[in-house]
C-alpha cells in the first residue's frame, strides 16, 4: 500500500499541474512588475501575458465571473473618482493613463492570483512558503486568505441566485445596470456581511485545527516539470518585454 503522505508528492490541479512554488513566483512577478510599471501600454502587454497564464490555468466561467466582479468594482471606483472630481477639480484634469493604470495593475494581479488560489492546495502552499523560509506570521494569514477565495466565489454565486429568486428571475445585466442602488442593497451589502462572517469562521476553524504561526509542514520539493519551466520562461519574457515597452514607449510618450 503506497504511503498516504502524497502531501509531499503532489502537483497542483489546473491544466498545467504546476508546482505551488511556480504559482507563487508568478504571483510575485506579476505583483512586482505591475508596481514597477506605470505606462498603460507596458501594463497592457503584461496583462496579455498574465491573461494567457490565467486562461491556461482557470476555468473560463470562473475567470469570467472574476472579471465581471472586477469590472463592477472598477465602475464603482470610477464613479467615486468622478464624484471627487467635483470637489477636487485637479482629479478631472488627470490623464487617461493615470486613470487606467491602477485597473490594469489590478487585472494583472488577479490573473496571477486566481490560478494560485483555485488550483493550489493549502498544504502545498504552506510547504512551499516554508521552503522559501517565510516566517509563520506571513504564512498563516496567507493560507487563511487563500482558503478564503473559494468561499467568496461560492458566496457570490449563492447571492446572485438568491437575488434572481427574489426578483422573479431578473438577473439580466440591463436590469441591474438600471437599478444600481437596488443591486448595492441586495448584492453587495449581504456580500460584505458574508465576507465578515466567513472570515471569522475560517479564523476560528484555523485555531480549532491547531494552525499556528510556528506550525512546521516540512515536505520535500519535487523537481520542476517542463510546464513549470515553460511558465517561468513566459514570466521572464513578459517581464523583459513589458520592461522594454515601459522604457521605449513610455519614454517616447513622455517626450
Amino acid at each position: 500500500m503506497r504511503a498516504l503522505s502524497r502531501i509531499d508528492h503532489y502537483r497542483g490541479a489546473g491544466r498545467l499541474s504546476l508546482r505551488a512554488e511556480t504559482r507563487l513566483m508568478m504571483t510575485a512577478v506579476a505583483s512586482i512588475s505591475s508596481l514597477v510599471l506605470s505606462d498603460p501600454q507596458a501594463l497592457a502587454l503584461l496583462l496579455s501575458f498574465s491573461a494567457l497564464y490565467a486562461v491556461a490555468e482557470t476555468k473560463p466561467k470562473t475567470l469570467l465571473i472574476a472579471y465581471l466582479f472586477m469590472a463592477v468594482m472598477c465602475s464603482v471606483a470610477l464613479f467615486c473618482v468622478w464624484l471627487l472630481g467635483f470637489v477636487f477639480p485637479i482629479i478631472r484634469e488627470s490623464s487617461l493613463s493615470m486613470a487606467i493604470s491602477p485597473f490594469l495593475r489590478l487585472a494583472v494581479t488577479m490573473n496571477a492570483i486566481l490560478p494560485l488560489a483555485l488550483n493550489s492546495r493549502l498544504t502545498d502552499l504552506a510547504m512551499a512558503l516554508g521552503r522559501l523560509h517565510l516566517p509563520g506570521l506571513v504564512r498563516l494569514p496567507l493560507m487563511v486568505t487563500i482558503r478564503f477565495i473559494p468561499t467568496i466565489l461560492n458566496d457570490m454565486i449563492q447571492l446572485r441566485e438568491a437575488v434572481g429568486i427574489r426578483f422573479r428571475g431578473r438577473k439580466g445585466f440591463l436590469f441591474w445596470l438600471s437599478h444600481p442602488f437596488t443591486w448595492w442593497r441586495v448584492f453587495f451589502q449581504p456580500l460584505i456581511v458574508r465576507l465578515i462572517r466567513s472570515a471569522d469562521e475560517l479564523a476560528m476553524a484555523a485555531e480549532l485545527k491547531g494552525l499556528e504561526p510556528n506550525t512546521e509542514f516540512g515536505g520535500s520539493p519535487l523537481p520542476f516539470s517542463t510546464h513549470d519551466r515553460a511558465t517561468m520562461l513566459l514570466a521572464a519574457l513578459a517581464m523583459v518585454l513589458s520592461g522594454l515597452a515601459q522604457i521605449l514607449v513610455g519614454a517616447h510618450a513622455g517626450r
Partner: protein
Amino acid sequence: MLKVESLSYRHAHSDRQALKDVSFGLAPGQSLLLTGRSGSGKSTLLAILAGLYPHFLKGSLEGRATLDGLEAGRGGVAEWGKGARLMLQNPEAQFFAGTVGEEILLTLRCRGVTGQEADDIAKERLGTLGLLALRDHSVFKLSEGQKQKAVLAAFTSLRPKLLLLDEPSANLDPSFLADLKSVLKNLRKEGLSLIVADHRLYWLEGLCERLLVLEEGQVAFEGSFGDLADGQRRHRLGLRSPEAPRPTELPGPRGLNLPAAAPAGPEGHPVSETGNPEGHPASEAASPEAPPANGSLQAVQTAVTVGGNGWAVRVENLRFSYPEGRELFGGLSLSLAAGEVTALTGPSGRGKTTLARLLCGLEKPTQGRVTYQGKPAGLELGQVVLQNADHQLYMPTVLAEVTLSLGQGKGGKAVKAKAMEILEAFGLAELADRHPQSLSGGEKQRLVVAVGLARPTKLLALDEPTSGLDGRNLSLMAAEIRKAAQAGPAVLVVTHDLELVSLCADRQLELTGPMALSPGGQP
C-alpha cells in the same frame, strides 16, 4: 474529567446573560445530550468548552470549566484543543487540505506528528471511520455526512479527551445519522467523552445517556435520555420527540402509502419514472435490491389521487445531466397537486435539491419540460427558499423583508398589517424592527420561509426549512407550511427531517437509486 462550575457568560455589547450559573461534570467515556430551544445558549457553551474564550468570544466570563485540571481560556485555543475538539455545524468550514487523507495528515502536522507515525495514524482513522475508499477524494466534494466523518477522523486522530458536536444532524439524512451514531459509539469505546448539542433527538437514543436542557442560558433540566419520554416536560421545554417517526405513519387525506405507483400516463397519474418497471409496487421499486435499470431516480410512496384543485405542476420526461455529461435524471415524470404538501426525501446526494431547482426554473433541464398549469415553469411563477438564510436577507428590517415579498416594497398600512400578521405567525413580530442579519440562525431560517410564503406563487419549494429548529418552532413551521398549501400552490419540501414530514406532508416522494454525483466530484 470535564468540570463546569458556575459558568456565566455575557456577550460583548449585550446586556443579556447568554449563560447563567451552568454547572455539570462529565467523566471520561460519558456522553451528554445538550439541548433546548433555539438561542438558549447551547452553541455559546460549546464554544467556551472548545477554548474559544477569550480569543474569539470577547464577552465577560464568570465561573470556570476545567478538563483534567486545565482551565478553558488559559493557554490559548491550541493548548486547550489538545484535550477538547469542537466540530462546527458546517464541517466544510473546518477543511484546510485538499483530500480526506491530507486533512488528517494536516491535523497531525499541526501537532508536530509527521512521517511514518502520521501515515499510520491516518490509515487507522480512515479505516475506523470507513473512509479508506475516500482518502484521495476532495473534501469539498464529499456529501455532508462524509464531510462530518472526515472532520471526525481528523479531530480524533490526536486522541482528544472530549469531542463537542454542534448540531451534527442538521444536514444529515436518517441513514447517515445512523452511520454517524455508530461511528460515535465506537469513538466512545476508545474512552472519548462526548457532548452533542442538537435539536433532533431520536437518533441520539443509545448514544447519549445523560441529558442537559438549557433555557435562556440556565440549566432548565438535568437527567437521563429516558426523561425525554415525558411529553409534558418536552412540551414545556420546547423539545422535539425522542422517537423517530416512521414514514408509514404519515398523515394525509390523499392516500399516502398506497401501493402501485402507476407509470405516468398522459392524464391523472401522479408519478412515474422510467426506471420503475410498469406495475411494480412502489415500495419494491424503492428497495436497495431493486435499483433502477437506467441509473435514474425512483419515486416511492406516491399518492394516486388528485387533489380537488388539480395538478399545479407537471414534469414530463425530465432529463438532467451535469455539464460534464453525467446524468442525474433520465426521464422523470411526476405531478404535484395544488394545495398539497409533498415531502421530497431520500439520502444525501440523490438530487433532491437539484430536482427542486429544476421545478422552480433555477436549473434548466437537458430534456423534457416542467409546466405550472400549462405554463412553462420559471421564477415568475415558482419560488424556492434556499438553505442558506444569510444570502437571502438584505432589507434594513425584518418587516421590510416581508413587505418586499408581498410585492409592495414601499409599504402601506394594509401591506404592513399583512406583513405583521405573517411575522406573528412565525413568532417574529417582536423582531420586526431588527436588522435581519442580526437575528439568530433559527430566527433567520423562519424569516426566509416567511418571506417565501408571503409571495403568491404556483409552486413553493422549501429546501431543508427546519434543519436548526427546536420542537416548538418545528410545529409552528409545519403549521404555516400547511396553511400556505391551503392557499393554493403546490408545496414541495426538500427535507431529511422526518418529524416535519409527519407533521405537514400529504405525500412523500423519495428519491432513491444510485447516488448522484456532483460535477467532477464524488458521492
